[in-house]
Every structure is written in structure tokens, then in C-alpha cells.
């Protein structure tokens, strides 16, 4: 996993999955349709202004609420390369890893919108290049690192056919 570098879009605490993608749009298998409505009720301009490689930055409890994986898919399809948040809701956290959207839990970041941010997933390091500040992140469990390394749980299981016990230890 390489270093991801992009422009930060910063939002606050408790961004729930209804605001990431409203329930009325989730009943589809068209990922681009999801992406066209991403964060619509939070920032109606977001879907238009996001560029491939951009980084979403948030506060506490990002992705609270519904189990809808469409929330992670919408962000990934819209071009978000990695989500940096002070903390994540648990189902969203699993979903993002499972579909190959990297996440870093960075409890004390002070990143601002428009800053150029680099994320080193291997080292768990988040660098706000504009502000010249570095933040360390919470370590991800080995099983999640293994899934993310394969690009998600689909690829992981296509490759291994089953969960690998060794990685859980």
C-alpha cells in the first residue's frame, strides 16, 4: 500500500450514513448513481467539486447509523482515496475496508479544508503538508490490513477461499 496524497474536504462529528447517502438512493446496483448523490444533504456541492484522489476528513463517529455499504461505495466511486477521521462507527469501518476504501483513525488531527494531505497507510502516518504537521493513527488489526492489501474482502476471499486464521492472531 503506497502513500496517498490529495486535497482535504473537512466535515464535523457524527456524519451519519443517511447524510453520506440518503436511504432513498440506496436501492440500486449502479455505483455511479450512488456517487452522484454522495453527501447530498450535508454539502450539496460535494459531488460536483470532489476530484479523484481527494481525501475526506471528519471528526468523531464518522459513518454512524445504518449498515448500508452504499455509503462507503458512494465515497469510493466519487473518487475519495482515503477517509481520515478522529473516530469511525464500527459497521462503516468494516464496510470501507471490505470494499477497499482505506481509512485512518487519527484522533487528534486539525486538518483544514483545502490542505494537501498525505497518508502513509503502512506507517499509519497522516501528514498535513500545507500546515506542516504530522499525526499518527490507530493501528489497524492484522486481519483488516490483510483484507485491505488485497483491495477488499471480495478479492481476499477470491484469492484464499476462506478466512486465514494466522492473520487473526
Amino acid at each position: 500500500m503506497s502513500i496517498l496524497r490529495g486535497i482535504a474536504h473537512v466535515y464535523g462529528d457524527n456524519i451519519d450514513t443517511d447524510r453520506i447517502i440518503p436511504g432513498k438512493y440506496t436501492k440500486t446496483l449502479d455505483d455511479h448513481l450512488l456517487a452522484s448523490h454522495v453527501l447530498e444533504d450535508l454539502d450539496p456541492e460535494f459531488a460536483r467539486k470532489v476530484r479523484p484522489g481527494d481525501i475526506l476528513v471528519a471528526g468523531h463517529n464518522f459513518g454512524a447509523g445504518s449498515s448500508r455499504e452504499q455509503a462507503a461505495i458512494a465515497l469510493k466511486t466519487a473518487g475519495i482515496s482515503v477517509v481520515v477521521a478522529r473516530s469511525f462507527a464500527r459497521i462503516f469501518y468494516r464496510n470501507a475496508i471490505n470494499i477497499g476504501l482505506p481509512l485512518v483513525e487519527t484522533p487528534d488531527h486539525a486538518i483544514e479544508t483545502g490542505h494537501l494531505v498525505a497518508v502513509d497507510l503502512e506507517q499509519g502516518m497522516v501528514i498535513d503538508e500545507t500546515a506542516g504537521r504530522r499525526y499518527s493513527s490507530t493501528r489497524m488489526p492484522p486481519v483488516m490490513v490483510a483484507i485491505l492489501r488485497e483491495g477488499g474482502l471480495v478479492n481476499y476471499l477470491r484469492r484464499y477461499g476462506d478466512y486465514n486464521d494466522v492473520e487473526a492472531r
Partner: protein
Amino acid sequence: MGQTIAEKIISRHAGRPVVANEIVIVPIDGAMATDATAPLAIRAFRSMGGARLWNPNRVALVIDHAAPAPNEQISNLHGLMRTFAREMGCILYDVGEGICHQLMVEHDHVRPGDIFLGADSHTPTCGALGAFATGVGSTDLAAAWLTGKTWLKIPTSIKIVLEGSLRPGVSAKDLVLFLVGRIGSDGARYQAVEFTGAAIRSLSLASRMTLANMAAEMGAKTAFVEMTGLTLPYSYEPIQADPDAVYHAVFSFAVSDLRPQVAIPHAPDNVVSIDTVAGTPIHMAFIGSCTNSRLEDLQAAAAVLRGHKLAPGVRLIIAPASRQVFTMAVRDGTIDALAEAGATFITPGCGPCVGTHQGIPGDGEHVITSTNRNFRGRMGNPRASVYLASPAVVAASALRGVITDPADVL
């Protein structure tokens, strides 16, 4: 060292003693997905190379989130689920059978001590009968279909002790709203919640499901309700935490003086006592969802509305939890009393709770609802305001046209 309920259940499945924060791969006992999550799970399962389910008798699909379909796109997704269920030989609950969590309990798909995965965030509802039931997304569920396993981080646990007994007219919903307000929307994040204490020992299974259900609004991974006093249609061994189990936190509340509670816009943990919001005008009222649409909920509403008419300008929509609940409420006269009062009945299922079909509020409207989430836009319109309350409060408010304590009308 003593074990929490979560540690006990996972230890049995892992075949060795486990403690909080360990990560294990465990066999599961059942898996459920809905029309909101199954289509993506089917796509993921196929992409994984899946040809057969690990155990078709333990896999249930439920069409409840947008049922019946409001448009051709959703109807085709339902068709995809029907085809998949037929090919795989798994269980399918089609339009009108009811809400997924209700069906899992009613039809005996989950039992005490099970590890149960649901591709729905309110899966902890089944913790009311002592299962380790947790919500996952579609790809996690597809992996469980394929392997019969999942990976889990064993959660730390929070114990909530509820002392005293609830006043008449105060329900499990008021209790859990109060707790969500106190614990906060991420206060139990990644954790298991154990509800215990005198106040819950007399609660019905339905009320216990209400309690476990909204642990999701505290961010919990799963929830357990103490099994003392719980009767199930089969014999079972109650699962209890050891007296020396280790908890992340223990909260104790005396609940005998608790009044009806309301979560005000736009967060489920934005909870106030009813006096703070009594008199707020409402336009739409809804009784439904996996939180509160069982027989006792409809009966509580009927007790308020029997022999009366809804306030002018208020619409009351009711979606029973299941076909079984609906038929029981028909037989005992509950439906009659509610229909006479002016209520509108829709298909057993999730209904307006998820904002996909049927009963989407208009701009500037106030909704009082027995559901579990009032996030902005949750019910399909970000310009509406949603208040969460018990079925009795919803009914009393529909009767008066303003948010009303049921004690004022009974």
C-alpha cells in the same frame, strides 16, 4: 477471570476462552439480509466465486425496506433476491411478511447463545433473547454466506443497571430513549451493552426487543437483555455474565420516576423529557419499525385512540411489525379501534422509517414517530423535522395534533 455475556458466547464458538479486544474467526449460526443490503451481498458473493451457501437453512432474505416496490428499479432488485433464494434454496420472506428482526424471532431463526449476523444495523434487537447478534454490511454478509464464518473483535462490555419499575404509560421505548440520551450516540461504540436490573425483569419479549434495538443508537456492536423472567416457546439455558466479569463501564439508573421521553431533531441522542416539547404541532404520526410495531405497541396506541378521532390535519400511518402481528391485532379488535380513529395501515415492513417509500413527510412538516432515527433526511426529506417517541406518545400526539403526554389523555 469472569466473563461477560459476549465473551461467553464467543468463547463457546471459538472453542477456547477469549477475552475482550482479542480478534477471532468464529462460526456463525445464522445470517440475514434485507432488500436494502441483499442485492449488494449477492453481487459480492458472486464476485467471490460463490456457488453455494454454506448452509441454506441458516440464511434468510427479507423484503421489508421498500415493500411493496415503489418503482421498477426496486422491483427488479426484489426479483434478484427471489431468483437467488430459489437457486440457493435459502429462506425468503417476501413482501408483507414483516420486518427482518421481528421475523427472525417469530420464526425461530435465532436462539439464545447464537452468533447471528444481520446486514442491518438494528440486528442487536435479537439480543433480547440472548443471542450475540450484530449488524454488518453486505460484503461481510456475503463472506459469511460463503464461509459460514466471520471475524470479530471481542467487544468490551458496558453494564446498564435499571433499578425500580416503570410507571404506567411509560414504556421500554421511553427507557431506551432516556439511555441513548445519557450514553450518547457513540457512548457504546464498538461495545456490547448488557441491560440488567429489576426494571427489566417484568418486561415482555417485545419490550426487551425495543430496548436491545436502540443500543444501535448508542453505537453498540451488540446488546443483551437479562433473561430473568423471559419466556420463550422452547426450553433454554439463560446466559448470564459471571459475577466477576470485567466491564468497561457500569451505569446505574433509578427509573421509577421516569416520564415519557422524546428525541428531538436531528439526532437520536438529543433526548428531552416530554414536558420540554409538549405542545409542539405535528403533521404526521407514524407507528412502525423494528423498534415499536409489535402487538403491545399497537395496543398501547389503541388504548389512547379507542373511541376518539385524530386531530384535524394529522395523518397517522401504522405499519405492523409482521403479518402475524397484524392478524393478532385484527383478531383482538386493536386494528378496528385504530382504523375507526382514522389511522391508515400500510404493509408490514419498515415503511416510512427509511424514507424510501410510503409516507415521506413534506417540507417544514413535523413528524412524531415510534422509530429509531431522526437524522436529517432519514425519512426521505431533509426539510422535515422528526421526533422519536413511544407508541403511546405518538398516538396521544396524533389525537391532540400537538406533542402530548399520554397521561393527559388516558
